[in-house]
């Protein structure tokens, strides 16, 4: 069965609106001198402003694009257009023997992957050149951070709404200098709290105490289990060599891509892909970072599709974040698998915080959730009529209400504690990413 995409899924791969529009403009066979497809690739020659037509090719197995046009955007409008033609009807593009330039690219990609897989990885964990120097810097940073936190508590947090950006940013920058970017990020979380909203004190204390717990964990690393040490080091900002991770055996499964969340800070784009393993029943979070206008994402996954992939989890007491070792798009009916009710979610979190007090947002798939209003707030009710709050600021509410019509449906949600954000819903057994 050929891998298919919906038009929307193809348009979602575009880097911006202009590319989306240009791609749609070019998605007419009249604008292509030739097109072709095989089981693993699509290719075409599109007339451009140059003397020779642009050669566009798409690796269907991993949804990778290549084009001879000079565009810096990725994928370029030619790649989007070719895939759009294919998504509208596979018959739009004739099945033929692939030309040499396509074979060459596909073989090169395969060779690169094999080479990566076979390459010996020398460094086992951290990429830091001098761990002792870094550890000392982090310790110094933490010492200052603790002093700053204590000063704040001594004087009272009641004055925090009056603080300007510098108050938070100085501490965050100091932690960056101390090579603890993870802790800097946690300080920025404190800065991002809405201090003029009711209940900010609760939110602030939760974030502050999570930061404090992480710091204390780092200061007492040697007393903690090995895997928890790894979690805390990662929370502080120590990286794990991903090439090393990819050299380890992973979990091969059909992974449903249930959601994609994109955030941007200082032109650094972070993509968060939420995956669910159909056979393993495990959830995974894959992060991808790239700088806007300077680099392109290494891979693109479409929510609502599935991949046959080997994933390697980062070392953790409760593994969630993972790297994609190798993957191919695969056809899947995207059936729902998951938990029955909120009590299952809470049991999972109780277990989670018993071994990992500061844990990230998780992905849950819950069989039957329904949006219900209460005092100008929307809640998610399970089949036992138990409630959890919708994450404040979620922009998915009205789309979710439109799709569900207020009826109970299986949903994929991300979140932790009392707040959850739906990222997709199974409507009539068909998964629809929000």
């Amino acid at each position, binding site marked *: 069965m050929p891998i298919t995409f919906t038009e929307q899924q193809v348009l979602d791969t575009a880097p911006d609106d202009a590319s989306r529009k240009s791609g749609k403009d070019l998605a007419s066979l009249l604008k292509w001198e030739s097109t072709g497809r095989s089981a693993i690739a699509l290719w075409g020659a599109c007339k451009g402003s140059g003397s020779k037509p642009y050669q566009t090719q798409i690796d269907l197995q991993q949804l990778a694009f290549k084009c001879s046009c000079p565009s810096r955007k990725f994928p370029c409008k030619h790649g989007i257009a070719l895939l759009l033609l294919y998504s509208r009807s596979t018959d739009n593009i004739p099945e033929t023997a692939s030309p040499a330039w396509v074979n060459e690219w596909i073989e090169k990609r395969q060779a690169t992957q094999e080479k990566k897989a076979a390459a010996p990885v020398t460094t086992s964990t951290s990429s830091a050149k001098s761990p002792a120097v870094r550890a000392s810097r982090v310790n110094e940073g933490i010492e200052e951070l603790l002093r700053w936190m204590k000063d704040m508590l001594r004087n009272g947090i009641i004055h925090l709404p009056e603080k300007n950006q510098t108050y938070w940013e100085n501490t965050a920058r100091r932690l960056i200098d101390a090579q603890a970017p993870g802790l800097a990020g946690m300080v920025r979380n404190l800065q991002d709290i809405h201090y003029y909203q009711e209940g900010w004190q609760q939110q602030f204390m939760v974030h502050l105490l*999570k930061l404090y717990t992480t710091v204390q964990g780092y200061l007492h690393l040697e007393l903690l289990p090995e895997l928890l040490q790894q979690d805390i080091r990662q929370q502080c900002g120590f990286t794990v060599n991903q090439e090393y991770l990819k050299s380890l055996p992973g979990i091969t499964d059909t992974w449903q891509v249930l959601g994609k969340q994109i955030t941007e800070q200082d032109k650094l784009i972070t993509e968060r892909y939420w995956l669910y393993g159909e056979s393993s029943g495990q959830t995974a979070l894959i992060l991808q970072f790239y700088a806007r206008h300077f680099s392109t994402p290494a891979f693109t996954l479409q929510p609502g599709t599935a991949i046959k992939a080997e994933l390697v989890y980062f070392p953790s007491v409760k593994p969630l974040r993972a790297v994609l070792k190798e993957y191919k798009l695969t056809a899947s009916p995207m059936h729902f698998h998951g938990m029955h009710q909120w009590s299952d979610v809470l049991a999972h979190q109780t277990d989670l*915080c018993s071994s990992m007090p500061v844990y990230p947002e998780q992905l849950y798939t819950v069989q039957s959730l329904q949006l219900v209003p209460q005092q100008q707030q929307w809640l998610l009710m399970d089949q036992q009529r138990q409630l959890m709050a919708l994450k404040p600021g979620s922009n998915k509410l009205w789309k979710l209400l439109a799709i569900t019509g207020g009826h109970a449906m299986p949903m994929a949600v991300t979140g932790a504690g009392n707040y959850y954000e739906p990222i997709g819903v199974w409507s009539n057994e068909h998964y629809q990413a929000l």
Partner: protein
Amino acid sequence: MEHWQQLINIALLGTGKQALPAIPADDEPGTALAVIRHDATNDREDVLLKTGAILLNYRQAGTTTLPGDHLPIHTAASETRTYCSPEAVASLQEAMDLGSNALTKHWLELCADAGYILPPALLPILMDKATGSKQLRTPLMKCCGNRGMWLAQLNPDWHLLLPGHEININTDTWETGTLPQRCEVLTQKRAADPEAALTMLMETWKQENAATRAALLECLQTELNPNDIPWLQQVTADKSGKVKEKAWELLRKLPASEIVQSYQQLVAAAINSIDGAILLTELQLPLPAIIYQSGIDKLPPSALHMSDETYQLQQLVAQVPCSFLSTHLELAPTSCVTQLAAAGMEAALLKAAINFRETDWIGYILEQTNTFYPEVFHLVPSDVLEAYAMRFAEKEGSAVILRMGTGTTTWGLAITQQIFKFIAMHPYSYNRNYFLELAHLLPVDILQTDEKNYFGDILYNQQAWKSLREKLFELIACKAAIQQHLSPQ
């Protein structure tokens, strides 16, 4: 819960001012908290932070749900109509991507006419769009299905989309609303029940100031009828000049009013026919004072090449129904038009035809005239109008485009070709954005024609036109796709 709140209160005021929290004796974390409190190496802030860290984890390990038994469940009623096809959805998406509200509206209207409804996932984006674009509201709500109605009731931002919402505003705001709102109320009331609207206005008339009176009086244009005459006659004695002027303006539109009857007598005395030939005699000036009070002017001193008599007669002709002239002169309308036009009365005659909405007479005038009258657009059937517009498309192209753009029916192929030719000759005056809101008027048949036939090679090959043509045809192709995929069930 109590200890956690206590901890926050201490943090709020500061450990320098507040006593440390009491150790919970019987709670599970009590033992751990006692160890922290009794460790002499911990300062007050250490104690607060460590206590907080333990309480935080204790609380998150025991997170519970809230019971929802008491909450009412709101669900949308199931749909009775069919969803439109994915191809139709794609054409809607295309219209929105192109940024054309006109095509989006066209899509919604066709969808409603065909009896289809929108897929639910598209509703929020369209409802947001319709809150900012009034023209989309009615067509959207006709094809949004039960799901859309349900969503509009739930979201306060979308309440204004609900049918009847504006009527609610009307009844509430006649007494307290702003002037534009009150005008809207009166106009709507007037359209539904002219007598009741007049009574409503008469009841508050004395309390209104002059500017409000003038603005509200203007609303009586809607469904103006002979029953309004007695009251309007009274209003001509109003203190405000502006109100008087408005009242006369309305009376001049009513053939049964005394003033129009007086005009008719004066015109009948000045224009007669003998053996089918129209004869104009000079008016006896000055006219009765009431005629001047009603808005007929004397010739300004600066006017050249015209006598005062002719000037005033032209004004009088413009204020009597054309059908009166035809009856009085015992001549066919076309003959009246030809002869009066030759006597310099064409503009006055057209004004009268527009004033009294005599569509046939407008048509007769347009057939014969060599003058471009922008004000007649959309007052006559589109075939008559297009034939008239064709004669001026080259010389008065920009005005023709401007006026044709205010219509509601699709342009004919011939006039569209003429307009495109004009655009090609003026490539820097028009761009794609200009046509975004006119796209629904462009005929899809033009996609099948070859412009070379009516353009000539020179114009056709002009780069600026080629570029604009591509964009225009993109809009027309979108309209064609919309029509193709939304044919009635």
